[in-house]
């Protein structure tokens, strides 16, 4: 009984190690092809349109409402101690440092990450990836690298859009609806928001872009056979990416403070 328990634990540990190794090798191979061969610019642009441009509407929409509801909640809390003047910087700092990068990354994962995993997964099960290899076209260079580059480019831009529209949403609610003066909203914001806050948001978005494209490409690339396999890969890619975004967000925030 005891021995079989230990054996089971050992097997699980080996399985986890193997999985980490496989993820690591996948990323290293992608980096090798990223830096070791010319970038396929056309493919990168196609993927920027797919990951970035086509996610813009959903990111702007969620950004606006996040900023609006956040302004409502913060205003409610600030009135408890007469700190309404801090509404602008609170909304801006939260959006730039935290909500913008994280929520936009989660939205893009749901929209583009899942599609990415399923597209590559379908290519795997219908032998399209084998066809690439047979035609001596490296699948990492053709499929994985352009997606990673596109994600690393798109995520910070979309994160910035999210924060910008969120601040505007906060302005609508705070200034137009709740009566905070426009000068106070923006004036206090420029007093409190520093360049390092903006940089932090960009760094977070960059790393989220890498994480999401890495996980989604990996899951699609190693899809098991059949429609069930693609479904499983898609679901897992979204769940793992989302969880990793939140975990990595905590670590990167705690390091930077």
């Amino acid at each position, binding site marked *: 009984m005891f021995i079989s328990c230990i054996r089971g634990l050992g097997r699980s540990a080996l399985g986890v190690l193997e999985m980490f190794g496989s993820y690591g090798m996948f990323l290293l191979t992608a980096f090798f092809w990223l830096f070791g061969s010319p970038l396929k610019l056309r493919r990168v642009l196609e993927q920027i349109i797919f990951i970035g441009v086509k996610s813009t509407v959903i990111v702007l929409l969620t950004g606006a409402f996040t900023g609006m509801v956040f302004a409502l909640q913060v205003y409610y809390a600030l009135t408890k101690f007469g700190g309404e003047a801090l509404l602008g910087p609170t909304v801006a700092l939260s959006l730039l440092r935290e909500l913008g990068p994280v929520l936009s990354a989660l939205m893009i994962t749901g929209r583009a990450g899942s599609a990415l995993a399923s597209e590559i997964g*379908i*290519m795997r099960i*219908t*032998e*399209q990836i*084998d*066809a690439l*290899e*047979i*035609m*001596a*076209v*490296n699948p990492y260079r*053709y499929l994985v690298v352009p997606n990673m580059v596109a994600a690393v480019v798109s995520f910070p831009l979309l994160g910035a859009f999210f924060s910008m529209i969120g601040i505007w949403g906060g302005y609508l609610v705070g200034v137009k609806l709740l009566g905070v003066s426009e000068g106070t909203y923006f004036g206090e914001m420029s007093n409190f928001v520093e360049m390092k806050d903006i940089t932090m948001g960009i760094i977070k978005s960059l790393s989220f872009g890498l994480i999401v494209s890495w996980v989604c490409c990996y899951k699609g690339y190693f899809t098991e056979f059949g429609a069930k396999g693609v479904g499983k890969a898609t679901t897992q890619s979204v769940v793992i990416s989302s969880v990793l975004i939140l975990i990595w967000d905590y670590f990167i925030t705690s390091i930077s403070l």
Partner: protein
Amino acid sequence: MITIRDAYKSFNGNQVLKGLSLEIREGEMFALIGRSGLGKSVLLKHIIGLMRPDKGEIFVDDQNICSLRGTQLVAIRQKFGYLFQEGALFDSMTVFENVAFPLREKTAMKESEIRERVSPELEHMGLKNDAHKYPAELSGGMRKRTSLARAMIMQPSIMLFDEPTTGLDPIIGQSILNYIQLCHRRLGFTGIIVTHDVPRVFSIVQKIAMMDDGRIIINGTYDEIIGQGNPAFQQFLSGSIEGPLHYV
């Protein structure tokens, strides 16, 4: 020339290749027949280096493909064309883009030169009016022909056909075989056709090998094999359940 020496391969304990040996001469059209699910497609993937044998050697033009890595493997693969059983067409690309893909990726040809090369190939395959269609809009036969055109566009010296007529009606199936024969005459490649389409395929190949239980059990020209009166071959031709080949 392709030489397979004593190849073994197993998947999760299931031994698929059990010391298989085979030799295919340059420019020869070769049919590989045998019961379904016994490793014929696996053998093709070994020949092109998509899979590696657990034991044994596979030589393509005197190079052991099992020991090749990186750029060497890429270089040798450029000799190959491969017709997948299900076509493996890129579903986000049109017929034209699929056929042009290897030229765009592997050559420095200009778009006008690519067009000049692809258009006659599509016409040759009877796809001239379908160049703008996506794979989802094509019939099974059209998909096979597109895949065939894509495989042929780089004018390979070795062609591997994985069940080129499976799932097609007899007339379209025959037209695909005719296309293969035509391309063989035009390009003179070494061809291996994995198929169950017997006896029709025999008219376009010079040699036939039959695979069973992970080995080649019959190998020779049609006349030689018929002359031997091999019961397994007779059973396979007649499709009888009774005989030395067991139903799996």
